[in-house]
C-alpha cells in the first residue's frame, strides 16, 4: 500500500469505529434520557411544604433534574432547586422531601443542589399553579415589577393594584399587611364578603 492508501484505510477504520461508538453512545444516551424523564416526573410531583396546593414544579423552584450514570453502582440523580426567599426555612424540607420521594421511586443516590441565579420570581409560578392557588383561596401574584434603574421608594399603600377577592371575586379589597404567615405572602381582606385572604406577593 502506498502512504496514501494507508491513510485512506486508517481513515475508514476510524470512521467505522466512530459510527459504532456513536451508536453505543446513542443507546446509552437514550436510556439516560428515559431515566431522567422518570426522575424528573417524580421530583415534579413533590409538593411545597408551606403551600401544599402547589408542586415544586408549579411553584417554579424546581430548576433541573439530571441523571449521572455511574459505571459502578447506582445512577446519581442531581436535583437543583432555588429558594423563593433567601431565608426560606422550607428549603431544607423541600430537600428532604425530594430525597425521600426519589428514594421511594427507586433512586437511592440523590443529591439536591441550591441554585441562586437567576433569583426566583413569582413569574415562574405556572398557570396550573395559579389556578390551584385561586382554588385554595389564595390570590395569585400579578406580573413581577421589573423597573429599570434604582428601586423607587413607595410610600403610598402598595405598589400593586388591589387583587380580586379569591372567594367572591370582588375587586373591593384592602391591604392589611405586606407581610403574611410565610415570607412570600401579603395579607388582604375583602370589603364585600369581609373574608381575609392571602396574596402571593410579586417579586
Amino acid at each position, binding site marked *: 500500500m502506498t502512504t496514501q492508501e494507508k491513510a485512506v484505510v486508517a481513515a475508514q477504520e476510524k470512521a467505522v469505529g466512530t459510527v459504532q461508538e456513536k451508536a453505543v453512545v446513542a443507546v446509552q444516551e437514550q436510556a439516560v434520557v428515559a431515566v431522567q424523564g422518570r426522575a424528573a416526573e417524580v421530583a415534579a410531583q*413533590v*409538593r411545597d*411544604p408551606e403551600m*401544599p396546593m402547589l408542586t415544586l414544579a408549579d411553584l417554579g423552584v424546581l430548576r433541573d433534574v439530571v441523571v449521572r450514570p455511574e459505571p459502578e453502582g447506582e445512577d446519581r440523580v442531581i436535583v*437543583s432547586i432555588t*429558594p423563593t*426567599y*433567601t*431565608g*426560606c*426555612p*422550607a*428549603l*431544607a*424540607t423541600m*430537600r*428532604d*422531601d425530594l*430525597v*425521600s*420521594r426519589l*428514594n*421511594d421511586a427507586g433512586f437511592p443516590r440523590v*443529591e*439536591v*443542589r*441550591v*441554585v*441562586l*441565579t*437567576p*433569583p*426566583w420570581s413569582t413569574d415562574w409560578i405556572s398557570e396550573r399553579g395559579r389556578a390551584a392557588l385561586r382554588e385554595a383561596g389564595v390570590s395569585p401574584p400579578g406580573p413581577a415589577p421589573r423597573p429599570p434603574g*434604582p*428601586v423607587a*421608594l*413607595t*410610600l403610598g*399603600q402598595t*405598589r400593586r393594584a388591589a387583587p380580586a377577592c379569591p372567594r367572591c371575586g370582588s375587586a373591593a379589597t384592602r391591604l*392589611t*399587611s*405586606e*407581610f*403574611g*404567615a410565610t*415570607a412570600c405572602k401579603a*395579607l388582604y381582606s375583602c370589603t364585600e364578603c369581609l373574608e381575609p385572604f392571602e396574596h402571593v*406577593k410579586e*417579586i
Partner: protein
Amino acid sequence: MSDDHGSVYDGLLGGDSSQWAFGTDFEDPLAGVDTTVPEGTDAALLAEYCLMLGDDALIMSQRLSEWCSRAPDLEDDIALANMALDLLGQARLLLTRAAAADPGVVPALPEGSPVPAEDALAFFREAGEFRNVRLVEVPNGDFAHVVVRLLLFSVARLALLERLQGSTDAVLAAVAAKGVKEVAYHRDWAGRWFLTLAQGTEESRRRLLGALEALWPFYPELARTHPVDQALAESGAGVDSSSYRDEMDAVLDQVFAVSGIDRPEGAPLAGVRGRMGRDGLHTESLSRLLAEMQVVARAHPSGRW
C-alpha cells in the same frame, strides 16, 4: 417516608428526622454553588467583606427578632419577624461564603464538632471579631425606634445590594440580586411607618423625633469607606461604601420631605483612634446581645441540633 406533613407525631415516634417541622440539620446553604474566588480578588479580603455584610444582616436580624410578640399589632409583629428571617437568610449565605473564601476566619471548635462554618462564625466569635456597623447593635427602644433604625439600615442596604448585583463574585452577585427584592419591601415598610408616625398624633411624632435624634449619629458609618470594601471595589467584587451616600441621602430626604421633618444635625458617633464597627470596635450592647444569642451554642460546642 413521604412528604405528608400531616402528623408531626410520626416523627417523634418513628425517629425519622425528616419528619421534624423543617428537618433537623441545616446543610451547607451553598451546596452545589460555585464558590471559586474570582481572579484578581484576594480571598482573605473577600472573606472579611462577606463578614461585614453578613454581620450587619445577622445582628440586625437578631434585634428585629427580639420584637417578636411585642409589636403594637399582629400584622406588624409578623412583618418584623419576616424581615428578620430575610436578613437571617442573607447572613447565612454571606457567612458561609466568607468561610468558603477563607477557612481561616472560622473559629476552631473541638475535634469532631458537627457545627457548620456559618454557625461557628455566628456563635463562637467574640464581639471584637464582629464587623457590623454599630447602628444594628444598639438595644431596641419603642416602636418608633425600630421604624427609624430599619429605615436607615434598609436605605443603605438596598443601595449597596443594587450595586453588588454586578459583583465579579458569583455568590455575592446572587445574594444581592435576591436581597434587592426583599429589602425593597423592608424599606417601604419602614418608610410608610415613618410617615404614619410623623403625621399621627403629637405623641407619635415626639417619639419618632426622639428615635431619629438617638440613631442619627450612627447613620454616617453606613456609608463610610473602609480599606476592605475599597480594595474589593477595585477588584470588582465589592462596592465602595461611600459611593452610594448621595443616593441614601436622596431617599431619606424624600421621606423627610413628605413627613415634614427636618434632616437631623447631630454629629456622627466617633470611633476610638479611628476604629469603628467594621474594625471590630463596638458599643457594649453588642456583647450583651451576643451573650444571649450565643449562650446555648457555646454550652454545647459538639452539640447536634
